[in-house]
């Protein structure tokens, strides 16, 4: 029997746990509500760089200790930074949960040594170079800029070679001090555990962290759409991206938006699949729903031969137009719901999948839903719900950004 527990430490840190006595393992993560959109001023890329520095040691541990201790638990562990959150996680056998908590909690108060900072800066510059060799990534960063313009969602997660080169250790410390307050993070655990023990250890390890007043800015996104082409004569393929407003992570229409996105652009059996991939016009054509904090987007992406670029872009737009005019059929809605439900059940069988789910939901909405409740909400999506989303978010205005060998 799966049970849920929530508690809050006196300093404001939330602890959420989904306890599954039948699980063989347990996943634990600290998710901090901070990312590139919170990088005010001249510190582009600091959230992600800081994520790397969190592995570089504390007052009790060296960087080598941190890595070695994770390995000694046989942990699968990593971290990631998005526009909105930074998450540090480990998946371990239940007997290692106390050790994993001790290590992760210690990492949340990093030493940020200058020499480590300078060494890791080189690794960050390598990561930037790595992604510059991936056209899909280059295009995604470009369309986020074109679409969100002055809104902070436009900020790059990695930053640039220039911004990272100029960044100082003290700027990073200032950012850390302002954003890593216990009230701005969630400790999430899913799988097999002794919850009372977890709570006792969390109080011991995290209870003395000082409360901080951390706020996120929510300026209105002024989306105007537009068209831009980025020429790169080295490339063999043409890459096209479209972005338009969609429901946010807090919006009631987000389940319907998820079904809509699947029916329009899942990699198999969707409108885009039949219009573009099945006939061989594009080797990839996807449509996704990105629910962000108080703002959201739909995102279309395709890659094709440069000679077909006009045709592929026209088809992407006309398929979206057809959906606006006629909606989806009941069969499409039913198929997409079945696909999403299966994916949720499969993800729910793994502690890591459940931890990510409960963690994000708490960060965005301060709520918990069991897998069954989630599936019921999904099941309740019907043609009327889809139409309602389409009325509010009629795929307009559209930002179009393309990347390819053509000059224009």
């Amino acid at each position: 029997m799966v049970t849920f527990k929530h508690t809050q430490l006196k300093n404001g840190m939330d602890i959420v746990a989904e306890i599954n006595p039948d699980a063989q393992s347990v996943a634990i993560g600290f998710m901090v509500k901070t990312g590139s959109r919170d990088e005010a001023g001249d510190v582009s890329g600091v959230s992600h760089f800081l994520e790397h520095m969190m592995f570089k040691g504390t007052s009790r541990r060296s960087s080598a200790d941190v890595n070695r201790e994770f390995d000694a638990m046989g942990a699968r562990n990593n971290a990631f930074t998005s526009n909105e959150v930074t998450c540090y996680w480990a998946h371990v056998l239940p007997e290692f949960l106390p050790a994993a908590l001790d290590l992760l909690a210690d990492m949340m108060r990093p030493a940020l040594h200058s020499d480590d900072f300078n060494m890791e800066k080189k690794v960050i510059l390598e990561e930037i170079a790595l992604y510059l060799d991936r056209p899909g990534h280059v295009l995604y960063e470009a369309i986020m800029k074109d679409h969100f313009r002055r809104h902070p969602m436009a900020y790059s997660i990695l930053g640039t070679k220039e911004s990272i080169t100029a960044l100082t250790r003290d700027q990073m410390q200032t950012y850390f001090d302002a954003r890593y307050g216990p009230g701005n993070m969630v400790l999430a655990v899913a799988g097999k555990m002794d919850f009372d023990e977890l709570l006792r250890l969390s109080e011991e390890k995290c209870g003395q962290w000082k409360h901080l007043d951390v706020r996120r800015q929510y300026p209105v996104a002024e989306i105007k759409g537009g068209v831009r082409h980025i020429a790169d004569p080295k490339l063999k393929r043409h890459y096209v991206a479209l972005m338009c407003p969609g429901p946010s992570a807090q919006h009631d229409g987000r389940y319907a938006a998820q079904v809509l996105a699947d029916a329009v652009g899942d990699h198999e059996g969707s409108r885009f699949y039949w219009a573009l991939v099945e006939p061989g016009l594009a080797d990839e054509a996807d449509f996704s729903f990105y629910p962000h904090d108080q703002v959201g987007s739909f995102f279309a992406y395709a890659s094709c031969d440069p000679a077909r670029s006009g045709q592929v872009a026209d088809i992407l737009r006309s398929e979206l137009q057809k959906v606006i005019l006629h909606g989806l059929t009941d069969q499409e809605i039913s198929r997409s719901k079945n696909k999403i439900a299966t994916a949720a059940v499969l993800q729910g069988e793994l502690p890591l999948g459940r931890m990510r789910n409960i963690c994000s939901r708490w960060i965005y909405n301060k709520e918990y839903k069991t897998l069954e409740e989630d599936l019921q909400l999904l099941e309740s999506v019907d043609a009327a719900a889809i139409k309602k989303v389409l009325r509010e978010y009629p795929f307009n205005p559209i930002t179009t950004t393309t990347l390819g060998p053509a000059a224009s």
Partner: protein
Amino acid sequence: MSTLKTAGIKARQGVTTLSNGLTLLVESMPDVRSAALTILTPMGAASDPTDGLGSANVLADWITRGAGERDNRELTDYLDSLGAQRATNAETVFMRFNASMLADKLPQVLPVYGDILLRPMLPDGGFGPSRDLAMQQLDAIEDEPAQKLNLLIKSRHFAQPYGRPVVGKKEHLTALTPAGLRKDFQNRSTARGSILAVAGAVEFAAVRDLVEQHFGSWVSKEPVQMPAEAAAGGVWHEQQASNQVQIGLAFDAIPESDPDSIVLQLAMNILSGGMGARLFSEIREKQGLCYSVSAGYMSLKHLGAVLGYAGTVPERAQKTLDSFLHELQRFSAGAQQDELDRAQVGMKARVIMNGESSAARAGAIAHDFYHYGRPRTLDELRARIESVDLKRLNTFLEAHRAGNMTVVTIGPAPLAVPVDKIG
């Protein structure tokens, strides 16, 4: 049927071979409600006709475009309505079909795969698009230097036909015809040498009945084998104006069926398992030379290799290659007890964690059957990991030094490859 217990995981395995030679493997998992299937059939790039390189890759797309009584759209819509998550890919030896679903949908999904493998429509109208997609894949690889390196290092290091890039050659793809590829399919399609694995909330007897009903009439013949040719090996540079230099290394290793392969797997964990492993810690953490640096073990039935990878900007590329070679040389001097301890804990934890996923288990028992001739239990995996001590590990490392290396780089300029360190 055997029962296995590892840290409380109770699963039952069943194995049978149909009269046509198809092997069925079933693992019943009590704590899940999903089911996953993996089908491996010997129709991969290694058995492509010599003048039809890339055929299996085209077939992997074409074969799902209608089967049995259902045309392409009916088949796709039907599997989608069952919520089946699926992927079909050509690999070196096999064509692989994976599908995950809620377990109660297996009786409807499994027959569709019987149709796909035994009665594919291979429609004329679908051939052009399938081939077109394969051609586009070839171009897409040119835009992703890391992927390109992966194909290049394998094609230079492995003897043919096992080094063949699955994507094939443009001129061969251009020459393919629907009639020719249909004939190739008939030639290669066989139950013998094929493996069907199911894991999840399923019972052996019920799955066996389904498989006998829907795969029992599959033809049985010897899988096609292509003649072997020598590998190119050596040092190779490909000029490309990429942001990072891509560095690939390869050297021969024992195949997985060798009793010592567990020692090699532990050694690979020490070299490149977690973030505390040698390559990551020495090359990235201590020197900041690159973001990605790793080494992995890959094995087919009769051959194995260690493949190394690093990506780094041109200014640091030479030092990265030198450090990588230095770490490989230093490794033959042996590892420490604490390194072995961590590698063993890590491998055992993986065994248990993968035991929670039906998709991982279906893939694992199919893999086991190919390499070991039977599915392995979790208890057996654990015992094998624990059986290795430091003496055995270090004796192995001393006897199996990295040597006779293939080195491939992609980037703006070639690197100096020290012949004495790769020989």
